[in-house]
Each structure stands twice: as C-alpha cells, then as structure tokens.
C-alpha cells in the first residue's frame, strides 16, 4: 500500500493461490500463508451484524468471529482478558478504564486512510463548525493518546488514536404514541405519574444515571455541573429521586439488554422508556408504532470505536488495519446509517447510499420513496421524516455523553441501593 499499488487482501490471496497451484507444493509454510485470517471481534451484539461479516469476507477474505457481550462486559474483558480478542469495539467512555490498564494500543493514524475525514464530532467536539455538548466522557476528551502505548490522553491531536469510531448516536426516550396519545416534549415525562407502572429505565448504572440526570434537570429541580461527572451529593440526589419513583410504582421493569427493551415496548408493558435507536427500529418493523422522541433538553450521546489489543502483531495486526480501513470506506457506513446510527466518515457512506436514502437518514428530509432497513424490511412509507431531523440537528442537540465518573464506585453502590429499594 505504501508504494502506491493498490493491493487488496483479496488479490494478494488470489496471487498466493495461483502461486501455490502453479509451483510444486513445497511444504506446509506456503499452505499456512494462504490460510485466511480470522479476527475475533469483541463488542456488543447491537454492532455485530452478520451482513458486515459476510461482506468483509467477500471483499477482504477476512473471517470475522463475533464475541457478543453486554456493554460492561466489553470493558471487563478488555481489562482482564486482553488476549481473548483481536479487535475490540467498545464505548469511548470505557477508555477511562481500559487505557490506564495499558491493554490497548494507539491506532496509527497514518495507516488509517480516512483518518482525516473522520467527523469533527470526534476530533474537535463540533459539528458544522458549531460546538456540541461535552458533559460526560465526550469522545474528543479521549480521542488521542500521548504515545502508541501511552496510558494518558493527549489534549491536542497526535498520530495515535485510541478508538476509530464505528457507530455513534444521540439517544433519547422511546414512546408509544398510540398509547400515550399526546405530545411528549421533555425528559421529565419519564417520571410523570401519568405513566405509573408503564415506564422503564435501563439497568446499566453508568447510562441509567445519566438518563435520570436528564430527568432531574428537566424538572428544574437542580442543574448539574457535569451530568457525566457527578459529586457524591449529586449522586445521592439523583438516586433519591429514582428510589422515590420506584417505590411509587413508576417503573414496570428495568431493562439491560437491547432485546428486553424491544419486548417491553412491543408488548405494551411500557409506553415510555430509555431506548436505543435500533430497538425503536425493531419495534417498528414489528408493525408497532414507536417514536424515538426528540426532547427539548437534548440528547444523551454515545460512541463506540475499534481498538487494538496491545498483544496483536503480524498478519493479524495487518488484517485488523485492513478491516478498519474497509469499515471506513463506505459500505459498512451506509449499512449503519440505514439502521439509524451514524458512521464515522459520512462522505464515504454517502457514496454507497441512494440519494433518497441519504436525504431521509442524514438530511432529515421527507422520504421520496419507501425506506427499507438493511435487512430489506419496510421501515417507513414514502413521505415520512426521521425522528429528530437531520444529522446536524440531532448530533448538534447533544447535551451529554455516556461517561465514567470519578465517583464511579460510589455511584454503583448507590445504584445497587436503588435496585434493592
């Protein structure tokens, strides 16, 4: 790649194959060299699509072996079992735990072809020249490392990137408009007694508490210095509110896993709850009305990205870079955009999407034709617009980012108290 000739892994492999067929078979090493590479991809199930694995197999000959675990488990594995994967897809906030453990390697920006095209949301914390909310662990705070094996974050751009963004989005509440029958405009509705026994919040402490903080601020009771980094007193205040709501029977259930949230909403057990975008999509493809409701206080954003374990070397390391480059080159980005996520390099994704798709998903315009999901299922009829509008409108309204707090230990203890209450 450095000498300017464009080799893909595929042509290399084909070359190796023909060489093998033409020449006499000399022994095992040649066979071994032609053996396809397998990358063990650690991440959450939401990001691990079979279609992406199939496509990358087709394009690069790399086999992706998914290791699906829940968000917290990804972090735990990265810290405790760094040899158990070849590529990690983790949330930016967990870097605060993973990087000090020294288990991941900075990505060499020079080997990432589209590194300079990654959206400024990550590199500068802005979109279309406008700064966006940076409470919590905003990606720009943890995007660069001081050195390849550095254990501290760099405040200005360096050539070592912690994680190459895979997907990101702005989260809000999901609602069942057919059962609520009135407009919902504020986070405070989550704890509105009107929805007693029909609300839900997610039982992942670090994310759940942020949703709760959005509710607290929306009620006007209190304004946090930084919702993503609360003081002990602020944690107490937030948990107290949650406990009161729980004892009053506000919540039907808590959910921890993407599919649980889908089932709660689709079955009508809940009508308003914390939710993730693809879950809303999934409820809708079941023919149930569900809105990912934009709220006036803004969104809670998150972002995940690819990281390399420091033990990765040789062909696997090359394959990992090839895969990441492929991921940013458009097809995967378009796939993610069609799920309602956003991709790291919007301009390459655009080349792989129909203009009407781009207009619907990214520009917030009414759909010219029916909108289909990546699996081909009908998502929206022509004429519909995306909840929350355009990419800039949605990501521009981010209020805070998923975070690891300094008082994380205390927060987890208080969260357990909330669950036990």
């Amino acid at each position, binding site marked *: 790649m450095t000498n300017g000739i464009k080799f893909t892994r595929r042509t290399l492999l084909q070359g190796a194959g023909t060489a093998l067929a033409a020449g006499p078979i000399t022994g095992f090493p040649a066979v071994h060299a032609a053996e396809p590479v397998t990358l063990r991809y650690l991440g959450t199930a939401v990001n691990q699509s079979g279609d992406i694995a199939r496509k990358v197999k087709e394009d690069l000959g790399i086999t992706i072996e998914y290791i699906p675990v*829940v968000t*917290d*488990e990804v*972090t*735990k594995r990265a*810290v*405790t079992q760094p040899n158990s994967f070849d590529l990690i897809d983790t949330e930016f906030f967990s870097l*605060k*735990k*993973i990087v*000090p*453990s020294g288990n991941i390697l900075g990505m060499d920006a020079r080997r990432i072809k589209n590194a300079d095209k990654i959206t400024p949301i990550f590199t500068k914390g802005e979109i279309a020249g406008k700064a966006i909310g940076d409470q919590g662990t905003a990606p720009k705070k943890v995007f660069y490392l001081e050195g390849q094996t550095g254990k501290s974050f760099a405040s200005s751009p360096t050539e070592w990137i912690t994680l190459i963004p895979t997907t990101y989005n702005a989260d809000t509440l999901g609602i069942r408009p057919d059962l609520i029958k009135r407009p919902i405009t504020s986070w405070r509705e989550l704890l509105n007694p009107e929805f007693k*026994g029909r609300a839900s919040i997610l*039982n992942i*402490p670090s994310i759940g508490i942020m949703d709760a903080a959005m509710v607290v601020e929306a009620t006007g009771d209190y304004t946090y210095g930084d919702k993503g980094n609360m003081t002990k007193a602020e944690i107490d205040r937030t948990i107290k509110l949650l406990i009161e709501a*729980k004892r009053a029977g506000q*919540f*039907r*259930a*808590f*959910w*921890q896993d993407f599919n649980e949230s889908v*089932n709660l909403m689709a*079955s*009508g*057990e809940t009508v308003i709850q914390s939710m993730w975008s693809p879950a809303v999509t999934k409820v809708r493809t079941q023919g149930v009305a569900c809105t990912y409701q934009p709220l006036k206080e803004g969104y809670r954003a998150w972002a995940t990205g690819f990281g390399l374990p420091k033990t990765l070397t040789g062909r696997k390391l090359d394959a990992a870079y090839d895969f990441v480059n492929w991921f940013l080159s458009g097809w995967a980005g378009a796939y993610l955009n069609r799920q309602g996520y956003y991709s790291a390099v919007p301009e390459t994704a655009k080349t792989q999407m129909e203009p009407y798709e781009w207009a619907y998903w990214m520009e917030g315009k009414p759909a010219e034709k029916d909108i289909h999901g990546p699996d081909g299922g009908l998502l929206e009829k022509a004429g519909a617009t995306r909840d929350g509008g355009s990419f800039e409108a949605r990501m521009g309204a981010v209020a805070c980012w998923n975070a*690891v707090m300094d008082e*994380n*230990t205390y927060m*987890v*203890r208080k*969260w*357990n*108290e909330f*669950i*036990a*209450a």
Partner: protein
Amino acid sequence: MSDVALPALADAPAKTEQTETPARPRRRLPYLQAAPMALVFVVFLAIPLLLTLMVSFWEYNEYEIIPAFTLQNYRDVFEGCGNLADPCTTVRTYLSTLKFCALTLAFTLMVGFPVAYFLAFHVRSRAVQMALFLLCTIPFWTSNVIRMISWIPLLGRNGLVNDTLRSLGVIERPIEGLLYSDFSVTLAFVHLYTVFMIVPIFNSMARIDRSLIEAAYDAGATGWQTLWSVVVPLCKPGIAIGTIFVLTLVMGDFVTVGVMGGQQIASVGKVIQVQMSYLQFPAAAANAVVLLAAVLMMILGLTRVIDLRKEL
C-alpha cells in the same frame, strides 16, 4: 498440595485400616484412593474460595485490583446496617432473597412431596415408575433461561392469561401483578426447582421398607397417621437434601430474579454481578464471602435439625 487436604477427607477409613493392619503400604492406599477427588476439590473449590477470600481484603480502583489488607469492602457491604427502621441495601437484599427462599421452599415441598409419594407408592410397576420419573426430568433438556422466559408471554399485561380472563369477563382491567412481581419470580423458581425436591424425596421413599407401612396399618394407623408418623420421618433426609438444593440455588440466583422481576427486585447475586461488571472485584468478593457465610449458616442450622450423616 493434596497432602494438606487429604487427612481430613480420608480420616475415617485411614483409622480403621490402621487398627487392622499397621503395615505401611496398606495405610497409604486409602489416601491414594481419595486423592483424585481431593485434588479436584482442592483445585476447583478450596483454592478459588481462598482466592476469593483473599481478594475481598484488597483495594481496587477503576481498572485494577491492588493487593492490600483493608476491611473497607466489608464496611461498604454493611454500611448503614445498624438502622433497623430503614434497613441498608444489604439487609434489604437478604430479606428479599430469604423471602423467596421461604416461598420457594414451601411450594416446591408442597408440589414435590405428593409427586414423589405418587411415584414411590402408587405406581406399582418399576418400569412405569422409571418412565414417569424420567418424564419429570424432561424439562431439563431445555435451558433454564428459556423455560423461564416462556412465562413472559403468558403473564404479561396483554399476555395469554390476562387476555383469557378478560375475554371470559372475569376481570375488566389486566392484572398487573402477574409479571415482574414477587408472584412471577416465585412461580418461576417453583417451576425450575421442584425437580430438585422430587428427586431426593423419591429416593428416600424408594428405600422405605414396605413392611413398615404394612405394620403401621396392622397396628391400626389411619392413612394420614401412617404418612405423618412413618413416611415423613423416614423421608427427612430426602427433604433435607432437597431443601439444601433449593436454598443454595435460590440464594445464589440472579438471572431468574432479574428476568421475572423485571430487574426491579434485588438479589445478592445481582449485586455481585453488577460489581463484577464494573471491575470492582474486591467488593464483589466481600459480598460473595458474606453470601457464602449466610448460606453455610442456614445449612448448618438445617443439619442441626436433621443429622444427615446418620440418616444416610
């Protein structure tokens, strides 16, 4: 390694051997015979437990655990537990778990005993007995979680039960308490664990000498008297073993409570799991040690009531 643990395990047989033949090679034999099992116990039970105990005194931060000796983890577990009016998280959690233990125990016993009784005394043919017994274990061919989750569409707000009751006109509004409540958790526990009660009780009953029952009838005892004064006392070991199974399963469970309780009901296992997923291993270890102590105390109490060793 194994030498340390061996004497305790091979104690009794070793002594008898000693008195009979003091020759050296014969004395070693029981040790050797017990060694494989002892080794398995040491490697997979004793060492992990000791490690857990050790780690429970360590310090930790966001991303590493630090060897030290601190009681802070235990202090955190019991923080605020002196206040009886507003119990702390740990007391609350244990009370809730104990409640499920009691409920599950009561219902599994109520279901398990008659089933075992039917199998042991009413089914005459050995073959039919075995066939029916195997039938009881068939649910175990599917996963625990699947058997549990299959209740959800039944019990939900718009589930089968509520829909049926509504269409029959029995109720007007759906019963909310069917799912994500103490009821659904207990139901799932009973469904999952009754077999653990049936098997040991059936085993005890199968070994009851039939002539004892005949003797009771001959002596003029009614059916109930026979059941209460002959069968039940002889089933005590089975009941005790079943109780131990159910108690330990329920005490350590967090999946059933999580799924059927809608994650809203605390369990000790859940607390430990949350701490583990946040890399707070020492805190989780301290909780695990407290849980272990609690379960051991319960089983100790149980063995005071029934001397298992003597009965077996």
